[in-house]
């Protein structure tokens, strides 16, 4: 398989909190992320809120400039592609279909906008493609003239998916695509995403904090903590044999519907660290069960294993 999207040591820093009396401080939302997305795979990106998942996604889409490092789309730096080309090849699906659709445009207008922007075909051809894509996402054609407020949450998310796919992009970045939906609707949307991958061969990046959804859909999973990828492996190995203590804690926290198992205690403690003032050494060490003296001072580097990458002192050989 070939690499579709690659990030190389991507960083993003935000300046926050500055005023006349206080200097602004730097917050590193994304701190040196190197990731490869192969053609045709579904990469799951998991981590707690505030760990930088969405910032990373925005940089991949070209909605946010990286402060450092570079992002390559099929070997070409993203910065050299113009906006139109980026939008043709990559599209987002956002969490909340209530705020990501313009309430004053009809479904047909929303879905056809990318076609109009890219000047694809005549008006009649555009309409034909809109109806085709509505069929594909399982939304009855009679809704084409409806407005978002006349649709249910699941239908709205189908509209968002139709809009993302109408230009046949190669990469779709789904940021919590089902978090705002009921379970019965969630399963329909997940089925749809899988069907579309089979039919159109799209590659997905799936950002979610629902690990059951990620395990079901993703072919590979990257775990993010405080702006860094701490573990990256194929889904089966990661869920069977998680290496990083943070990954294990995340997996332990999942509540599968099995009565009698009780509520797990992942022993992560309370505090998600302040990203403005991250802990020294390994940023996970204040919450880690296996903390060693060197974790407090020495940041770990990525260790490549036969399958996947892990960033933890437990695995760099000298201490194990």
């Amino acid at each position, binding site marked *: 398989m070939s690499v579709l999207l690659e990030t190389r040591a991507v960083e993003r820093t935000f300046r926050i909190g500055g005023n006349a009396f206080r200097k602004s401080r730097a917050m590193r939302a994304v701190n040196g992320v190197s990731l490869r997305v192969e053609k045709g795979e579904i990469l799951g990106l998991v981590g*707690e*809120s505030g760990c930088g998942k969405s910032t990373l996604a925005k940089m991949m889409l070209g909605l946010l400039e990286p402060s450092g490092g570079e992002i390559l789309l099929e070997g070409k730096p993203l910065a050299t592609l113009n906006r139109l080309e980026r939008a043709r090849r990559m599209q987002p699906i956002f969490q909340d279909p209530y705020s990501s659709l313009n309430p004053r445009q009809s479904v047909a207008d929303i879905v056809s906008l990318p076609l109009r922007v890219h000047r694809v075909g005549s008006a009649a051809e555009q309409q034909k493609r809109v109806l085709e894509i509505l069929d594909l996402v399982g939304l009855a054609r009679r809704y084409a003239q409806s407005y978002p407020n006349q649709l*249910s949450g699941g239908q709205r998310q189908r509209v968002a998916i139709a809009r993302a796919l109408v230009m046949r992009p190669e990469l779709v970045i789904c940021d919590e695509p089902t978090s705002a939906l*009921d*379970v*019965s609707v*969630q*399963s*329909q949307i*997940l*089925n749809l995403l*899988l069907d579309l991958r089979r039919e159109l061969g799209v590659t997905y990046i799936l950002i979610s*904090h*629902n*690990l*059951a*959804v990620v*395990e*079901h*859909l993703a072919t590979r999973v990257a775990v993010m903590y405080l702006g860094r990828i701490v573990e990256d492996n194929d*889904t*089966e190995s990661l*869920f069977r044999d998680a290496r990083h203590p943070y990954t294990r*804690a*995340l997996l*332990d*926290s*999942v*509540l*599968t*519907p*099995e*009565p*009698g*198992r*009780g*509520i*797990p*205690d*992942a022993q*992560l403690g*309370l505090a*998600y660290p302040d990203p403005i003032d991250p802990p020294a050494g390994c940023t996970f060490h204040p919450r880690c069960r296996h903390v060693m003296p060197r974790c407090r001072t020495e940041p770990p580097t990525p260790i490549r294993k036969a399958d996947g990458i892990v960033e933890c002192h437990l695995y760099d050989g000298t201490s194990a």
Partner: protein
Amino acid sequence: MGLLPRRARRTASCLVLDGIDLIGAPASALADLRGNRMAMIFQEPMTSLNPCYTVGNQMEEMLLRHRKVTRREARERAVLLLEKVGMTAAASRLEQYPHQLSGGLRQRVMIAMVMMCNPDLIIADEPTTALDVTIQAQILLLLAELRKEFGMGLILITHDLGIVARIADRVAVMYAGEVVEEGSVAAVFREPLHPYTQGLMRCIPVPGKVARGSRLGSIPGMVPSLVGVSAGCSFRERCEFRQPECEADIALRPAVAGHARRCIL
């Protein structure tokens, strides 16, 4: 809780909290019960805490309203409960405003707050939906421990079957305003009887049971409109086992002792 807008009309043959009739009770009597004998935890702690008052102020108010205590005693109890819900530096937290706390901490404050008067019943409406998985497990563990320690009843409202399975003793499945199935968690998860419950269970990916990347089950159709009155089973339009008898109203009836369903099957 009696918090519905005035236009809503409640009808019930029986709505009683520990011998007190809640339907006939005047507003003042209900106000004496709310926060005192029964209390509620909402989904979004940012919108259910008042941003203009400190955490301490809002917590003390519960006790000052319902008990004859001094502000100092109320403050002591607030500190005690904040420690109980696992917050560090509890005394200084009282001076903080909700926006200075993280989502998990805010929800802990909510829980500590409803515990102020040691209520008999806590209603938690999606208490962890806005939180991360790791924090979710911590909050649920806390609720379960407090319930055991103080012996209160807990009604947990959620759409997450995983939470139900792990924390509840009994479960009532609701559809379109009616309870369609009720029973012990063990019985309902082992053998769901109502087609709606069965559908829900097929919708969720369960690691180890559902093959990765396979199609998940789904429930066709949509929740019916609740405007107007309709007779018969409210799920029949989406049900694969639909019979002519489903047009008539169906009572919730037991299949075995302690496990009932609203279905003709």
